[in-house]
């Protein structure tokens, strides 16, 4: 009989990340599809007992928590001990968890301790008979594999935006606290805080945003007047993403300019980069501006449903065939008009 353990963690502010609710519904679906299986829900965090109520609507055999100040922030050495204890107590054969920075760091280590196997970035699941098959991408989103494993426990770390988030109101549940002790020798690391990657602290990365704006190196090149307009470009981009609560992506060539000593957009960092050595975010819509390469249009856009591009080159080989609409225009002009129209709503 399969024991499906669903894992979640609280964030530093005590809330649960949205992707945890998505992974919870995936775990619940899996438990319904594998006959005779049990679902076990577990949460770690400073006040995990309060957070676990969010999963009260799930038909779980039991609810486990590891609570305490030591589990408020994300630290490998304490998280690995807590999650190993939970997985052992649950006697889990499947372990399902959301893709977060905290779980991405620690779950491979937990899996190793349990001599299990792990697949991350799970982007689809199907059950035929009693066999679970999953889908995940290889070679940086260039090909997709469908696979299964017999070894247990099998850890499945689920990507965001793949499954519907769990619906249902919070509900009181009977909670078992798993006892975890942390000897001093595994507390050599102290989390001291958080810093914005961008200078000035501008918030430009919003994983849950509806739209992704991708900026390419063209923003920093000479424009039709023979001059570069970095300051204006920065204002246009920031204005757009603030007004539309959009997330900001970048081509590699744009973020690489900082290490090459060129004038750059101060809020743009390598964390914004999409593509082979960046992220492949999931958003409903994507608008690329001043991009001329494969990276933003193919790999970086893999999980963008509705894609448009503003580009001066009507024959751009990467925009054609990858974007749904290609506007042949000057992105400076178009973005300025968009910002102006949005500022004066009566014109929209």
């Amino acid at each position, binding site marked *: 009989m399969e024991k499906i353990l669903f894992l979640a963690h609280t964030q530093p502010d005590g809330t649960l990340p949205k992707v945890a609710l998505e992974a919870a519904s995936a775990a619940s679906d899996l438990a319904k599809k594998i006959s005779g299986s049990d679902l076990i829900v577990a949460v770690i965090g400073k006040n995990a007992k309060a957070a676990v109520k969010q999963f009260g609507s799930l038909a779980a055999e039991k609810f486990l928590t590891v609570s305490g100040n030591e589990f408020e922030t994300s630290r490998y050495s304490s998280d690995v001990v807590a999650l190993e204890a939970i997985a052992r107590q649950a006697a889990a054969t499947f372990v399902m968890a959301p893709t977060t920075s905290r779980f991405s760091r620690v779950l491979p280590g937990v899996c190793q301790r349990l001599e299990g196997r792990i697949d991350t970035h799970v982007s689809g699941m199907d059950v035929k008979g009693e066999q679970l098959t999953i889908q995940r991408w290889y070679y940086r989103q260039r090909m997709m594999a469908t696979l299964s494993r017999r070894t247990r426990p099998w850890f499945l770390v689920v990507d965001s935006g793949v499954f519907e988030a769990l619906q249902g109101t919070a509900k009181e549940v009977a909670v078992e606290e798993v006892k975890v002790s942390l000897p001093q020798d595994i507390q050599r690391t102290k989390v001291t805080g*958080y810093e914005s990657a961008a200078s000035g602290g501008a918030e430009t990365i919003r994983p849950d945003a509806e739209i992704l704006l991708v900026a390419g190196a063209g923003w920093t090149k000479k424009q039709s007047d023979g001059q570069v307009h970095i300051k204006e470009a920065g204002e246009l981009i920031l204005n757009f993403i603030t007004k539309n609560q959009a997330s900001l992506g970048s081509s590699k060539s744009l973020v690489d300019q900082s290490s090459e000593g060129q004038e750059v957009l101060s809020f743009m960092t390598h964390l914004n*980069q999409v593509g082979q050595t960046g992220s492949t975010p999931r958003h409903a819509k994507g608008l690329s501006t001043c991009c001329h390469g494969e990276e933003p249009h193919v790999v970086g856009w893999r999980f963008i449903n509705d894609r448009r591009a503003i580009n001066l080159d009507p024959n751009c080989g990467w925009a054609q065939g990858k974007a749904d609409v290609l506007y042949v225009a000057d992105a400076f002009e178009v973005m300025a008009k968009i910002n102006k129209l949005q500022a004066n709503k009566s014109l929209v």
Partner: protein
Amino acid sequence: MTTGYHIVVCGTLVPDPLQTLEPVQSPAGPALKNEAMLPSVLDPWAGHALYEAAHLAKSNQGSKVWLVSLGPKAKLQQLMMTIAQKAPFELVVVDGSASGFTDSYEIAKALAGAIEKIQGLDRSRLLLFGGCASASRDASVIMQMIGERLGIHDQFLGVDELKAETDGSLKIAERVEGGKYQMSVCAGPPAVLAWATGNLPEPPNNPQIGMANMRNMMPAIQKAQPAGLAASTIQYAGVEVPKQQRQTRIVKDIPAEEIAKDILNWLKG
């Protein structure tokens, strides 16, 4: 008293990102079409880890860098021609498949075994470096699994900055959600650091470093041990390249304001 770090970097080759990749079925499972012929590069994030390692070693006297690579030794030999001039390191080769379709569990086991056999490696001074994800499997799991096998319980993923403080502690910036860094202080080695981009550009070629590296590289490649990867426990039902072609509507020769209105309608829709 011994000083400096013993930095082991795990990294291998991946197909050049500019190559078109096509999956095929081989007797051992999925593979890439003409895999042996595809031009290769050092896995990008592992490359960043190597350059950060070399920089750290240079600024901390008594440090040493090893590069542990699991891949087909003939292809690794070609790869070394391009990276040997970038940074000083001693090469350790494990001969086996660098395919993304091999099981991460088996790769971690083989790499941990190779690291355990490195002569003169002081595990109390060990910093285990690697990329935060490969450009082949893209799983972000192998470094943590190697760390566990080596008994290292201070681990960091998506590192962009490491500062060695005067008291011996390590100040580390790791990528977390929302464009932020989680800042941590670790008491010191041993630790696992899986690097993201870091802060350093690719170093220029240095022929002197290349000549020094090549003295140990050829013997290292010749005495490479087979990885001994066990049969994978993964059953692949299929591997496919997704349909990429979209019917692009090209909008041109209309004023910027009209385009702006069209985009705004689209955003609202």
